[in-house]
């Protein structure tokens, strides 16, 4: 039976093994050519050094990558939240830990609307799992179970380790091919063409050096796609419910918009530390350059496992969730405003009580004398603004808001802040108080810094920053050396 998950896992395992053998053969052959013709030392010095340069770079992203990015992007431990959806997500993670017989991984939430999930970590004991806010809010229980099982399958298959090895070989092949090509152009002094008198071999070596980086990339991507099919089948092995993951993938496929926080930091590492994510939005025309197989194909395979043959549908997903006012529970609408740099900012104001929700950065970038849309202050409010007390829920993340006070602020103002997305809520009175006070206060850098901090600017630990810098320097060094 070709739709059995055991069969799929076995089949892909064999294919991965074969691809890895081809990969190693390519590397050894290239290194052999270079060392044979240059023959500076009796040892294969070039092969070994290319391998080590590449290995060091890969190991850095292997041990640091995931953690650094999670810190930099402001991921918060999942266990910190006690709202329904987040508790449910944590429950599912521990259910899957039981199903897979691994220790409970560290689970994090990332404040991002795009539904995604990824794992990192060198072994099941040190595994981290990160879910975005989008995926927790978008999916139902069965779907989230499928997604988390897919991530557990990555942990069980040790895909982070596997892809680090692949990336090492890939990097080493690129270095070797560069050296060979440079050696060729550098003139006949360097490469001894007459050695062994094998001109055809030289030509083959030259041709191979030209195409090998491309070949290596195609091979690496094929192995990665294989790993995804294996993780899908592994997820079914854990949950025995292929339809949950299939419907989750269908929802994510139809989701409009893209992830921003993570993609902006990924370039820092030579090996993508978070490549164990769920599915990629980026699709090239040619399938062999993609890290993930086409989502439609994955859905069809999963449905086949359950004996269903329905094609993936394109459902209309409402991208924007309607925001609910944390103060009075009313509807919120968007109001235009201009930031200090003249950029348009869309604030969310409650239509009934006039309270305003400021997303991360928004309050700080408004500046001392912001320009608002006309009815921002004049709007007639049906219900008076309630005193900010009781349980207030973040309209974006659905978790409890925290009261934050600062000695810089006037007595009457308390920021209601969301720990996850760093958004700030001000009710009508507080908003007016804040802006009139802000106008009076002369423009000062120090205050702006504090405000930026409040609205969620870097809250990075020093260690994380150091690692980020080192990663950046190293990866730029690699790019120069190549």
């Amino acid at each position, binding site marked *: 039976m070709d739709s059995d998950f055991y069969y799929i896992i076995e089949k892909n395992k064999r294919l991965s093994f074969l691809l890895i053998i081809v990969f190693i053969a390519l590397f050894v052959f290239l290194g052999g050519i270079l060392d044979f013709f240059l023959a500076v030392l009796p040892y294969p010095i070039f092969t070994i050094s290319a391998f080590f340069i590449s290995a060091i770079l890969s190991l850095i992203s292997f041990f640091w990558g995931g953690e650094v990015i999670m810190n930099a992007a402001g991921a918060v431990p999942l266990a910190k939240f006690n709202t*329904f959806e987040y508790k449910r997500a944590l429950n599912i993670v521990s*259910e899957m830990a*039981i*199903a897979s017989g691994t220790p409970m991984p560290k689970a994090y939430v990332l404040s991002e609307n795009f539904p995604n999930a990824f794992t990192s970590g060198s072994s099941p004991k040190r595994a981290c799992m990160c879910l975005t806010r989008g995926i927790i809010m978008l999916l139902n229980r069965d779907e989230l179970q499928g997604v988390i099982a897919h991530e557990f399958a990555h942990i069980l298959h040790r895909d982070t380790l596997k892809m680090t090895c692949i990336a090492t070989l890939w990097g080493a092949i690129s270095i070797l091919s560069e050296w060979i090509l440079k050696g060729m152009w550098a003139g006949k002094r360097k490469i001894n063409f007459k050695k062994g008198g094998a001109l055809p071999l030289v030509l083959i070596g030259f041709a191979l050096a030209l195409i090998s980086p491309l070949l290596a990339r195609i091979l690496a991507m094929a192995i990665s796609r294989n790993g995804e099919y294996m993780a899908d089948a592994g997820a079914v092995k854990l949950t025995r419910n292929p339809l949950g993951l299939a419907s989750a993938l269908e929802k994510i496929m139809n989701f409009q918009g893209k992830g921003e926080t993570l993609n902006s930091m990924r370039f820092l590492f030579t090996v993508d530390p978070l490549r164990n994510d769920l599915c990629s939005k980026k699709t090239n025309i040619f399938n062999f350059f993609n890290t993930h197989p086409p989502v439609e194909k994955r859905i069809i395979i999963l449905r086949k496992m359950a004996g269903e043959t329905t094609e993936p549908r394109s459902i209309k997903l409402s991208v924007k969730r309607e925001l609910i006012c944390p103060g009075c529970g009313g509807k919120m609408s968007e109001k235009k405003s201009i930031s200090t740099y003249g950029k348009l900012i869309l604030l969310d104001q409650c239509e009934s009580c006039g309270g305003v929700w400021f997303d991360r950065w928004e309050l700080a970038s408004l500046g001392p004398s912001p320009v608002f849309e006309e009815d921002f202050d004049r709007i007639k409010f049906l219900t008076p603004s309630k005193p900010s007390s009781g349980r207030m829920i973040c309209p974006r993340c659905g978790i409890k808001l925290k009261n934050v006070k600062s000695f810089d602020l006037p007595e009457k103002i308390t920021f209601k802040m969301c720990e996850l997305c760093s958004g700030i809520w001000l009710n009508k009175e507080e908003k007016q108080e804040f802006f009139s006070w802000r106008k009076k206060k002369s423009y000062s850098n120090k205050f702006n810094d504090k405000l930026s901090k409040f609205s969620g600017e870097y809250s990075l630990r020093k260690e994380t920053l150091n690692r980020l810098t080192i990663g950046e320097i190293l990866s730029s060094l690699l790019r120069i050396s190549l």
Partner: protein
Amino acid sequence: MNTLYISLIAASGLIFLWVIYAYNLLVRLKVRVEGAWRQIDVQLKRRHDLIPNLVEAVRGYMKYEQETLERVLKVRSMAINARTKDESIKAENELSGALTRLFALMENYPELKANENVLTLQEELISTENRIAYARQLYNDLAVQYNTRQEIFPSSIIARIFGFKPASYFNVGEEEREVVKVNLT
């Protein structure tokens, strides 16, 4: 002559190493199987603790379902007081069935869905039900591995010599297979 001795010693050394390896593998599997069994017990205990809270929380809303609620409580105490393993397995399976029925009935009460306390309790119980199912699944998977290892040659010799016994499988109870009937009238 000398080479013969050396090769004999090397061969027996290799066999000895393999015996150690095969024995350790069996022991490791045995420990994992036992661990998986204990995990089931932990989750069953968690379920016993959660049930009274949920029943109390929904009792006020589900006035016409007293019979179902009483049955859940009764089966729970039966499961706790079970003496033998067979009795316990039977009672736990019945409890799963009774809970499934309760969850299905709860769907008929929209006001329950608005109650956050009930929702949280229900989520905890659903999660526990899943954990029990997954713990059993893991136990069965490990038991298959353990038993296969004992059956296949040559590790079957080691299993025979050191007296490893096959682990028993967990069967799904009749109660759980039964389709839940929901009265919608």
